[in-house]
């Protein structure tokens, strides 16, 4: 049969080894759109959404990380207990599509699609998540920032799957922000994730939908680290403004059917400033 509904990781990897260019199907919320609209043809599918190893997650208290199986769905991520450990990913998860989409869409599929507008990827980038890849030839780990290499392009080799994503548990305030034409069921015009690492005294900022891949903002992050009192959650209005300007400067947006580059730059400045103020409510 040309559709393999894998019920173990081994079976999925064997099927992919036998047909390395098969379409890997997780939640289907991206792949099926391409099939329905005739943008993709396929004669072989390996369905991985029911692979138990990919559907489970583990919490590592000692390392303070959560390892999410690639087929963990957004409906699970935006509920506790995952939401308590990964609040920004949960927040982003709540804006990924509708309840129907979130019941199917997986975090690994979100990453594998490698859309520049992927809401979940922006959060994973801000949190320096690690992507665990597996094939019948073995395993390798890739930092999330090196996983996507362009719009809808990534380092996955034929026959290779995302097995899991390790995400550090929140070590300070974190939040996700998104601009789009409505609240539900919308692809971001621009999105942003800010995560504070209190013990390290640092602030991470990632931007989506404003470049060929998700972007980090090293200059804005340096401003925040140097000028914010992270422990007291304090930032001056000048710091917030400088942070927002630096975030805007890091954006590399284009004009397209969803918005203009100029509006996206403006949106980035507003979102970055708001996120930093939420993280640092005291002036």
């Amino acid at each position: 049969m040309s559709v393999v509904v894998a019920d173990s990781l081994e079976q999925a990897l064997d099927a992919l080894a036998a047909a390395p260019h098969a379409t890997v199907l997780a939640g289907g919320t991206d792949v099926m759109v391409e099939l329905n609209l005739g943008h993709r043809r396929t004669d072989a599918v390996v369905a991985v959404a029911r692979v138990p190893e990919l559907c489970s997650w583990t919490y590592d208290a000692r390392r303070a990380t959560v390892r999410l199986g690639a087929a963990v769905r957004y409906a699970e991520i935006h509920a506790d207990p995952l939401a308590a450990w990964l609040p920004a990913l949960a927040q982003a998860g709540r804006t990924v599509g509708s309840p129907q989409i979130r019941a199917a869409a997986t975090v690994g599929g979100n990453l594998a699609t490698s859309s520049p507008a992927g809401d979940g990827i922006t959060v994973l980038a801000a949190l320096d998540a690690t992507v665990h890849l597996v094939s019948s030839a073995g395993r390798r780990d890739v930092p999330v920032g090196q996983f996507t290499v362009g719009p809808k392009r990534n380092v996955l080799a034929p026959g290779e799957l995302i097995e899991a994503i390790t995400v550090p548990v929140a070590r300070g305030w974190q939040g996700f922000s998104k601009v789009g034409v409505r609240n539900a069921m919308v692809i971001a015009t621009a999105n942003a994730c800010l995560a504070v690492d209190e013990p390290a005294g640092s602030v991470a900022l990632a931007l989506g939908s404003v470049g060929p891949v998700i972007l980090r903002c090293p200059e804005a992050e340096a401003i925040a680290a140097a000028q914010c009192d992270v422990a007291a959650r304090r930032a001056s209005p000048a710091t917030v403004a400088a942070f927002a300007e630096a975030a805007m400067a890091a954006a590399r947006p284009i004009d397209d059917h969803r918005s203009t580059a100029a509006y996206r730059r403006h949106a980035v400045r507003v979102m970055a400033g708001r996120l930093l103020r939420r993280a640092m409510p005291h002036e």
Partner: protein
Amino acid sequence: MSEQYTLRVNGADRPVQDAWVGESLLYVLRERLGLLAAKGACEQGECGSCSVLVDGEVVCSCLVLAASAVGQEITTVEGLAEPGAPTDVQQAYVDAGAVQCGFCTPGLIMATHALLERTAAPSELEIREALSGNVCRCTGYGRIIEAVQQVAARRGEAGR
């Protein structure tokens, strides 16, 4: 290549023959199994008019690869009730005037059943969020939300 598989739909085994590998569940339900309640509009998960339950979860059938749903329990509006004997949700939609052109209604009925299974007495915000994946271009949603609230209230009274 032609695919042969059997889906479990509304409690019955339904063989599917000579299918293309990439067919959506929506296509198979409508074109191969003759179940016309789920509606096809956007074919990209935006409108919710094709919503069905797969293993109890409401999903867009246009985004389910039919051949990958083997072994799962699929429920469409046809499986909710016999003709002429509507469920309380269907009756409330009629009573509240929540049906105009009717195209989105089957998807909304499935999403409403799924919501009330999880949350017996949802707030208006919870109703709006639960139905946010179902687009209606006629009603403006007010009467749809009233219908959901009516069901919740009637079930609450019946349960007392």
